[in-house]
């Protein structure tokens, strides 16, 4: 049986206006991403990949269309996204090209912060953060500040932070761009593992053609339109 989509974009458009100029970044995009699925979002620069991620991540409202997450309509034109912070922190995990760790917090604190923000008691948050980091082979780096971690380690801490609240949707924007090919592939393999073990839906914006085999399918954006979508592989839920 096909699981229901975690992320569902329906006819999403995004138009930016500057004076008389109008830029249509997304033009009627409809996408579903299901539990346990890792989807690659490809396309040239300016094709609307990052805009798609901002709208899916509830960071910008669409100009037209709807965004549903876990079966709930959460965003449409004019939506007050600032009021969706709680929803965002519980349902969506973000990973970016740069790890964007808080420099004055240690690795374990960076991860625990995401939990404490969600009202998890400090001690419990730290314990779970340490567990997550240990699971990503960072058990020996718990108390290091970001400046003392390598790029790959920082990105893994960012992954742990994104996972902390056990989101059903993970959105990654060029997560391997700052890493060498080996580290980059390790991170993408981590997403594969997250999708398989945690049954999260993972959308990865990437230019990295070497990692295509790790995706269940890819969608290609050109000039804000979905120009190509590889057929969905059957996803088996645990």
């Amino acid at each position, binding site marked *: 049986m096909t699981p229901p989509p975690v992320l569902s974009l329906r006819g999403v458009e995004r138009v930016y206006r500057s004076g008389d100029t109008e830029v249509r970044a997304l033009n009627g995009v409809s996408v579903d991403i299901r539990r346990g699925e890792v989807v690659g979002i490809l396309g040239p620069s300016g094709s609307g990949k990052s805009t798609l991620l901002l709208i899916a991540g509830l960071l910008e409202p669409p100009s037209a269309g709807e965004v549903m997450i876990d079966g709930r309509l959460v965003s449409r034109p004019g939506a007050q996204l600032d009021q969706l912070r709680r929803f965002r922190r519980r349902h969506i995990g973000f990973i970016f090209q740069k790890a964007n760790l*808080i420099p004055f917090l240690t690795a374990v604190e960076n991860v625990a912060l995401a939990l404490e*923000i969600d009202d998890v008691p400090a001690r419990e948050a730290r314990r779970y953060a340490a567990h997550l980091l240990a699971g990503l082979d960072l058990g020996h780096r718990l108390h290091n500040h970001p400046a003392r971690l390598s790029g790959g380690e920082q990105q893994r801490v960012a992954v742990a932070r994104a996972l902390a609240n056990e989101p059903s949707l993970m959105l990654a924007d060029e997560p391997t761009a700052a890493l060498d090919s080996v580290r980059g592939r390790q991170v993408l393999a981590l997403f594969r593992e997250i999708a398989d073990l945690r049954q999260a839906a993972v959308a990865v914006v990437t230019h990295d053609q070497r990692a295509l085999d790790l995706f269940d399918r890819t969608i290609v954006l050109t000039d804000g339109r979905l120009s190509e979508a590889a057929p969905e592989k059957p996803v088996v839920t645990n």
Partner: protein
Amino acid sequence: MNLAFKDIRFNLLRFLLTAVGVGFLMMSSMGMVGLYRGIVADALLVIERIGADLWIVQGGRQGPFSEGSAVSSTMDRRAEGLAGVAGTRRFVQFSQQFTAHGRQMRAAITGLDFPKDDGRWIPLIRGGPIANGHYEAVADAGIGLDIGDRIHLGQDDYTIVGLTRGMVDASGDGLLFVTINDAVAIAQRRTSEEVLLARRGAAPASANRSSVPQDSKISAVLVSLAPAADMEAVRRNVLAWGDANVLSKAEQRSLLLDQRLWRLRLQILAFTSVLLVVTGIVVSLIIYMLTMEKLHQIAMLKLIGADNSVIVGMIAQQAFLIGAAGLLSGLALSQAVFPFFPRRVLIEAPDVAALAAAVAVICGFASLLGISRALKVRAQDVLS
């Protein structure tokens, strides 16, 4: 997790340097207020400590702390005869420059009406009070003299028998207490030129007078009232003499603060206000710059779903911690530095409390600046 503390601990040196910088500003503000308090305290010192209920001064004048005053050298006996008067003392004070230990020194010679007043009200740090009617002195340590030192004043040598600390006149000159007869003798010293001019009859003063126009060197008579005395009745009686004016302790205080020191007080208070404004601007800029530095992290906090209260708390706590640390380091610096200043800088608890309140307002304002900027940051700015 307290983000403000974590940030401070991570950037401890920067925080400490910032706090010390703010501390120096606080020290300057405290110093200005302290200088003002010190000048007021110094000016009022003799009035407060000498223990007189009324001051009888030259008629039509406002007393020795406002203008020249000379009363008859026997006016104390007249006053003693008034009903309600428990005791009287003659008072004289004038500035004198002299040489000791090979250098020029300056003191406010203050006469004690010995033996009625042997100066036991003067707080001594070493030595003892004046025990003989002549040629002994109690000096303030600020003059630069020590016990046993001999100094030449007028025509005579005086031995320092006791030392005080912080006993100065309104100009900040250390007090040098001698008996009133010695003080009059010192005041009547004339230069050879004066004597010569007096003999020739060319000088305005006669041969048996100094250049000071009054006959007497006594500036005022201090009156202590009996416990049940009617102060107003005593005042009326003195005014009835016609050649004397009478001032209460409160009037003397008011004369000093509201007339003689008024411009100085206003100037210091105005300068203190300017310093507080400068402190406010500097602290506000520091907090604002600290916030600007963290905009990317604030965007990240918003992205992971942090409520505004987390961001507001971080900025406000840092602002108040910088303010508190600045105030404390300012206090510590004041305690370390001000004792070496030539004039008394009096740091009083209510002034520190008022400064703390001003700092709180400044930090609150600075926080608002930082917070208003932080709240404009969008979560998606983390991508920029």
